[in-house]
């Protein structure tokens, strides 16, 4: 059996339901230390969620801020029917959706994430590969995100949550505040569109280095 390695989330330890309820109760009384604790526990998780959905670290700090402001505002309405982390993830999804919509209306210049994307994947540092293989991996990831960029925002989020995060329909329905039937249908069209884009190549291939804008 392989040793289990916890994924780094930024939280010191997972909260049990009772501790979580206690933390929420203290936050509701506007306890500053409770707010700090909640922020410190979930800040990296929130940032990672936003980063993975958007693949863009431009204004990521603003988005993290937005998520926590919404969370602190809405804690009174949090009924506890999901884990706090799931509820925060739901806020992340909604904030990310808003960002995707804004970005589609107003395409921004190349972001920091795009520059960073040319760097070597940190997960590969421990396992040296040939430069060609590293480049290919990076290109594969870019192709995935380029295809995602071309989907409508709602489809993009649903597809991301299902195909990449591996979440089931009920989870996704909760996260996007919809019902499973809607999610299922949206996912059906999103998958079809996404994999067609992935399979049919030209538009997704990055422009050649130093070459023209794109392929014919």
């Amino acid at each position, binding site marked *: *059996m*392989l*040793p*289990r*390695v916890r*994924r*780094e989330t*930024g939280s010191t330890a997972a909260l049990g339901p009772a501790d979580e309820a206690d933390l929420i109760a203290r936050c509701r009384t506007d306890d*500053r230390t409770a*707010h*700090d604790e909640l*922020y410190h526990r979930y*800040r*990296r*998780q929130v*940032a*990672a969620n936003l*980063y*993975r959905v958007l693949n863009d*670290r431009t204004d990521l*700090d603003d988005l*993290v*801020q937005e998520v*926590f*402001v919404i969370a*602190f505002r809405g804690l009174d309405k949090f009924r506890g029917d999901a884990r706090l982390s799931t509820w925060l993830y739901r806020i992340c999804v909604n904030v990310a959706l808003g960002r995707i919509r804004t970005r589609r209306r107003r395409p921004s210049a190349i972001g920091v994430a795009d520059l*960073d994307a040319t760097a070597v*994947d*940190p*997960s590969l540092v*421990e*396992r040296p590969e040939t430069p060609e293989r590293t480049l*290919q*991996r990076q290109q*594969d*990831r870019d*192709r*995935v995100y380029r*295809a995602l960029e071309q989907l409508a925002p709602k489809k993009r989020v649903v597809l991301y949550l299902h195909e*990449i*995060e591996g979440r*089931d*329909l009920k989870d996704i329905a909760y996260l996007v505040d919809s*019902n*499973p*039937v*809607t999610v*299922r*249908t*949206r996912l*059906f069209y999103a*998958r*079809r569109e*996404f*994999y*067609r884009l*992935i*399979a*049919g*190549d030209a538009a997704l291939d990055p422009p050649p280095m130093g070459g023209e804008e794109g392929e014919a």
Partner: protein
Amino acid sequence: MSRHVAPQTWADAFAGRLSDDERAAIEQHAEGCEKCARSRARVGRASDSFASLRAQTAPELPWDAVRARVHWTVSKERRARTAPVPRRSRFAWPRRTWLALGLAAVGGIGVVIATQRTTSSPAKEPTIALARVAPAEAPSPPPAPAPAPLAGLVNRAAGEVRLDGVRPAELFTQRLVAGNVIATGDGAVDVQFGEASAFALGPGSTLELRRFDAEAIELAVTGTIDVEVAARRPGQRFLVIAGEHTVEVRGTQFRVEHVAEGTRVACRHGRVAVRDRAAEVEVGTARGLRIAPGTALTEERVAPLTVDELDALARATPLQLPLWDVDALARNSAPLSIATPTAATREVRVDGVELGRAPLAVRVMPGRHTVEAADHAGRFRRAGWVDVAGAGAGARLELPAERPPTAGIAARRRELRAGLDHARLASCTRSIAKAGLSGTYVQIELAVDEHGAVGFLNVIDTDLPSSTARCVRESLAQVRFRAGAAATLRERIDL
């Protein structure tokens, strides 16, 4: 296989969602088809990259600065909330008063002058002049346009459903309009009438669409109705009439049960107002109101719903499709009938969504749909795929007869566990473990016959990349079984 393989089918194959036969068929096709081979390679590379996308960690941010900004925003709002209401300026009143007095004085002088003019020269105001200056008879306002009628479409139906007293042959093509009466026998029916707006009529119920247009919806019910309705625009009304009580909503999900024993209103979310001739009572989220026959509304109390009641409301959520425009939905969907081989009913789900007990029919979008049926233990097992062509061309699937429970599941499970080659499994997952991924799993479905031969071995769920999942599956396929009881089992193996 002559048609090209759809790209998403390759994704299903890499994720282990296809059977061995299906997989073999598309692989064979790809051997002789350059386009599909290229598609397979590209989708495979994309699927492989999902794990690394999932494993991305957060970049470093100025955490303290973000925290400070969050604190500043939240505390500023809190201060604004708790700050006392500012008192009016001491001088504001006199200033306004003087202004009002000034205006009144000017108006009074004007009135006096006008009166004097009128009284001093009455002859200067001939009748004809008066007639001339009198405004012409105001044209009658144009009649208000009639509100646009609404139409509803059946999304799910089970058992006997009658429309205006008859059992329609093509229920899914019927458009429900004002004046229609829907009645259910032992069955139930879900009707969608707008985006995010639908109702489900329970067994033994009757519903009359008394008014059904863009301005108002009035549903008169006897029996049980579950309604989920999108937020109404100002001026729009949504009423459910249950005997002498009316239930009015703005945007919510709720249930009204009107039977001989009384009326019950339960609200899952949102808020509804229940009225009779004398009073009005509001029922909020997760609350219910029971009204016994002959009792006044004011005597009743609103009580919180139990967890079971809330769960029942959640399960009764009417089925809705995301596409709404009655014509578009009618054009782009088709009914799927799910039948059972015997009189027994079975819980079914389509594409992962639980729909209730078959036989039933459900409206679906075109494409391939997975149908699963629950076995005696309540576990859903795949019953088959259905391809729905769309444009009204319905499809039908008969559920296979339920196999009797196998006795040897526990024995086969023990054999599987004992036969696992842990070293080989570890070698399969070594690369992803090095990349920082652990706690992964595969869930398999396995059938072993009485001779110990493996009928099928499918990876039905996993969080592994497809190449690793393939390796794990090959390792599991090496497990040998002795002769014994035939068994089909599902097993989750943590890696």
